[in-house]
């Protein structure tokens, strides 16, 4: 891989990652802000609760989405070592979700 193509690959990745992070933060912040205002105005309501839960879940999913996009970018650049490393990170994130489920079943 030449210096030039290596650089443009890393710039494409930075751009893709930036787009995912910005979208996730904007969507979750919007849900959380509307949810907070809604619950202050109407009190405890199903809509407010749904908005807050959605905002939190979108926030938690944003780094996961960033990891998935990174894997896709490394695969399309045929950068196998980093595709593998980033896949390990995704597996670790999934392991956390599994651990949370197991804790709940037991306790």
């Amino acid at each position, binding site marked *: 891989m030449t210096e030039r193509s290596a650089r443009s690959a890393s710039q494409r990745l930075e751009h893709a990652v930036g787009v995912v992070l910005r979208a996730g933060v904007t969507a979750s912040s919007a849900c959380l802000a509307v949810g907070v205002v809604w619950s202050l105005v109407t009190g405890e309501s199903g809509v407010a609760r749904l908005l807050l839960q959605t905002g939190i879940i979108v926030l938690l999913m944003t780094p996961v989405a*960033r990891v998935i996009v990174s894997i896709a970018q490394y695969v399309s650049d045929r950068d196998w070592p980093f595709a593998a490393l980033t896949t390990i*990170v995704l597996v670790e994130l999934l392991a956390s979700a599994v*651990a949370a489920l197991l804790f709940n079943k037991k306790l």
Partner: protein
Amino acid sequence: MMPAVTASLATIIFTAGVVSGSLGALLGLGGGVFLVPFLNLVLGFPFTAAAAISLTTVIATSSSVSAGRAGKQLINMKLGMLLEVATAGGSFLGGITAQLVAQSILQRLFGVVAAIVAVIMLTRLRRRNVILDPRADPGVLGGRYYEDESGTTVTYRVKRLPVAVTASFIAGNVSSLLGIGGGIIKVPILNAWCGIPLRAAAATSAFMIGVTATAGAVIYYGRGQLEPALAAVAVLGVQLGSWGGMRFGSAASVKWLKILMALVLFIVSAMMFARGGR
């Protein structure tokens, strides 16, 4: 016991979020190192509830700060992705451990971590960034970025990779145990021992802590220890605060940042020991 969610509590937490977010941005941290002690020591939240709220703000700060920086080559993506394997693994184990140990242990651990980092920062006040020949080869994991302040291109190679990996694992572990980003552990080590300039180390760490915090936050969330309404106001406050802090961050001197950071950490450490020792 979790306090009931009221408008006044929401306002207090929002304000705490603004303060810790702006301090965090000035210091190159996620802000959790201030928010956790405030929620736990001042407001009396259970440590796990404080950590859960803080971790969600860490994710938000990491994501928005890194989105703003993407494209400036300050974030070392390859190094970040490599070290994330260690931080996420450490965070996963820390999140499980936090469910199994007593609050007083977590508080004393927080005190130890805060004091260690404060000492590291104070001993490194005069340290200069490593600036190599801009034509040098940064290697696979190194980086190159343009620094506005000095008007120079900074090029660096990563040294002692096993040290960086080990530090990242410990930082990830501490992150989800204590509800902080973990940057306070990684950044000094990456800077002092691994040859990474402070700004690149801070940007790369800020990029990584979103993934790190998620591995822990998912466990707290799944366990029902994350109150969405309180996390929401904390996240919004921290977002506002870090946006404000970022505007002054590049103008502030690194030396004074370090002194301020160390002082705050000593105070936090003493308070955590006082509470955890009871």
